[in-house]
């Protein structure tokens, strides 16, 4: 019950109820007041008319005539009251038995208690509204009306007011209770579910009622968020599994080398060789680790602020120039066809990616016994800047093309050669970070890697892609 009272729904309903009761009170109060006034006006009008009639009688027949008329009218049944009395208050005629003393001393409108003629002093006095006159000869005349009708009306209004207040309160509180309980039930269900999700059940989703109300909309967006978190967590898990596997393998090799050197009665030379091997192995590990960090950073997308306008063509030419002697030595013709191509990006990351692609092409992109050929191009395609690195090697089978973009995937054919298996997945992550994509195609024969990035908006050719 306590939790029910502290809910938002209940508070809102209570506030509305308060306003409603205030309003109802005002309306009923005003109605009652207006009715009272109306009734009082009618009474005074009646009295005034009666007084006028009596005044005419008095004018015609003096006090004697007046006493006759008053006696006659006073005996009729009804709410009208009359009294003719001497200056000292001794009644002469009329249907009033008793008045509070001094009532007749002040001419004008009064409201007063009275008893009818013939009622005993033990009876409850009535209320009346009346007008008092002084008549020539020091007589007093009182004409009035009983107020019982008016007062009964006031009681009816008062009772009605209290009753409606009670009904409104009871209904309002009941309504508040049920509405709040309904809302509370749904919120409690959501709270339970989120506690379960916090405890580790990431597959859980908040219940929705299907009514598209505000709670459903809230639950819907929380569920979308949970979906994203679940996907990220799955990705994280996959990455850590891969890291565990692919870092442990070289670590084991490293350890084996050290152990092997310690086991035999090795010469200085053998120790030196083992230590050199260990350093090489750890350099490889560091390289893998760095690549993983770069991928993670690129995928988290928090390097966006490090981006600046760069020329993709210039970066490609720079990398081409860096690798040209290597290609030359390997008997591969490396051709770079790249004009200026402004994009927004990180020179370091793009350079690293192009270097990886060229490095891959030089390592795997040739058939034994044939002259190799690696071509790097940068060109505009609609709103995109497109970089391709193509070779004339054995290529990659259709089935494997999607797979090689994943982390650590190295095709059987390349396992024997050095490399971390992260080059292409870094390229894919960097492409995504730049808002672009990467694709592998058949170069007939060979492999063609296409990196597609959005061109800079300040490139005049990109501003009007149709031209």
């Amino acid at each position: 019950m306590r939790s029910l009272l502290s809910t938002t729904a209940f508070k809102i309903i209570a506030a509305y109820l308060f306003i409603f009761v205030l309003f109802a009170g005002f309306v009923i109060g005003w109605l009652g007041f207006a009715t009272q006034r109306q009734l009082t006006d009618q009474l005074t009008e009646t009295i005034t008319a009666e007084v006028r009639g009596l005044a005419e009688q008095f004018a015609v027949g003096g006090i004697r005539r007046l006493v006759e008329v008053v006696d006659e009218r006073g005996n009729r049944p009804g709410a009208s009251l009359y009294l003719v009395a001497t200056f000292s208050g001794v009644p002469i005629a009329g249907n009033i038995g008793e008045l509070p003393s001094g009532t007749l001393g002040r001419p004008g409108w009064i409201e007063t208690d009275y008893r009818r003629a013939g009622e005993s002093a033990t009876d409850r006095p009535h209320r009346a509204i009346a007008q008092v006159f002084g008549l020539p000869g020091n007589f007093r005349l009182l004409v009035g009306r009983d107020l019982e009708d008016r007062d009964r009306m006031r009681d009816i209004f008062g009772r009605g007011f209290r009753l409606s207040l009670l009904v409104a309160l009871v209904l309002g509180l009941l309504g508040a209770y049920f509405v709040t309980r309904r809302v509370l039930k749904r919120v409690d269900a959501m709270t339970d579910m989120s506690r379960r999700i916090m405890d580790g059940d990431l597959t859980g989703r908040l219940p929705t009622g299907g009514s598209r109300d505000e709670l459903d909309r809230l639950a819907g967006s929380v569920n979308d968020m949970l979906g994203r978190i679940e996907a990220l967590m799955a990705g994280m898990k996959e990455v850590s599994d891969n890291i565990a596997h692919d870092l442990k393998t070289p670590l084991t090799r490293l350890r084996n080398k050290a152990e092997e050197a310690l086991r035999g009665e090795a010469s200085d030379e053998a120790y030196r060789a083992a230590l050199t091997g260990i350093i090489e192995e750890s350099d490889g590990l560091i390289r893998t680790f760095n690549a993983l960090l770069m991928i993670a950073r690129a995928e988290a997308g928090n390097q966006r602020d490090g981006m600046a306008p760069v020329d993709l063509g210039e970066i490609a030419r720079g990398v081409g120039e860096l690798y040209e002697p290597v290609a030359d030595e390997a008997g591969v013709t490396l051709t770079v066809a790249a004009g200026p191509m402004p994009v927004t990006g990180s020179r370091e990351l793009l350079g690293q990616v192009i270097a990886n692609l060229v490095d891959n092409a030089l390592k795997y992109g040739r058939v034994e016994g044939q002259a190799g050929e690696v071509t790097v191009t940068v060109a505009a395609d609609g709103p995109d800047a497109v970089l391709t690195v193509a070779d004339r090697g054995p290529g990659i089978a259709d089935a494997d093309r999607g797979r090689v973009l994943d982390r650590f995937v190295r095709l059987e054919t390349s396992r024997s050669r050095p490399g971390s298996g992260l080059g292409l997945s870094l390229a894919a992550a960097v492409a995504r970070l730049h808002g672009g994509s990467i694709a592998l195609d058949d170069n007939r024969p060979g492999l063609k890697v296409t990196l597609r990035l959005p061109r800079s908006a300040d490139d005049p050719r990109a501003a009007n892609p149709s031209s």
Partner: protein
Amino acid sequence: MQTMRILIIEDDREAASYLTKAFREAGHVADHAADGEDGLAMAMDGPYDVLIVDRMLPKKDGLSVIGDLRSAGRDTPVLILSALGQVDDRVKGLRAGGDDYLPKPYSFSELLARVEVLSRRRSSGSAPETVYKVADLELDRLSHRVSRGGEDIILQPREFRLLEYLMKNAGQVVTRTMLLEHVWDYHFDPQTNVIDVHVSRLRSKIDKGFERPLIHTIRGAGYTVRA
């Protein structure tokens, strides 16, 4: 190489004692501070040639140590060591007043080569030379002419810059990463021995046909140009 006084500000005792020992074996004097405040105090008092500052330090982080040092008007060269190896971390370090940045893990030969270059840059101080000379090899930085034994050698622009950097640091070991950073302005790992191929091309132009080679390979470290 003359003796350098080096201050190592590094909180990992093992790494620090390894570095201190290695620098002493290389003929230098090395002191150690274990946190940022001590390090700053020692750097302000002592006449050090080079400071090696770890980025993450107790009490005062590496970048604020460098910032305070620079605001106090000290221009002692600083090499930043950091586990954060990304490009933007490097830029942050250099912007804070560092002169060089080396991500962990590093090889000692790489660190030594960089520290020696930093220290010599400071001691040579005066106006930059326009002509570098090593034995009978001459490189004119203004006319971009290279000659050996009085005969002109034609170099590609990149080959020229490679030789220029090697000769600027003549007598000192220059690592492959240093060459990649200063000649190509790349801070990534090119995976392959690209630098070796470039140097061997340069060597074939400079040393071929001469009795005494000038470009030497230092095993496990890099290259040096000396007579």
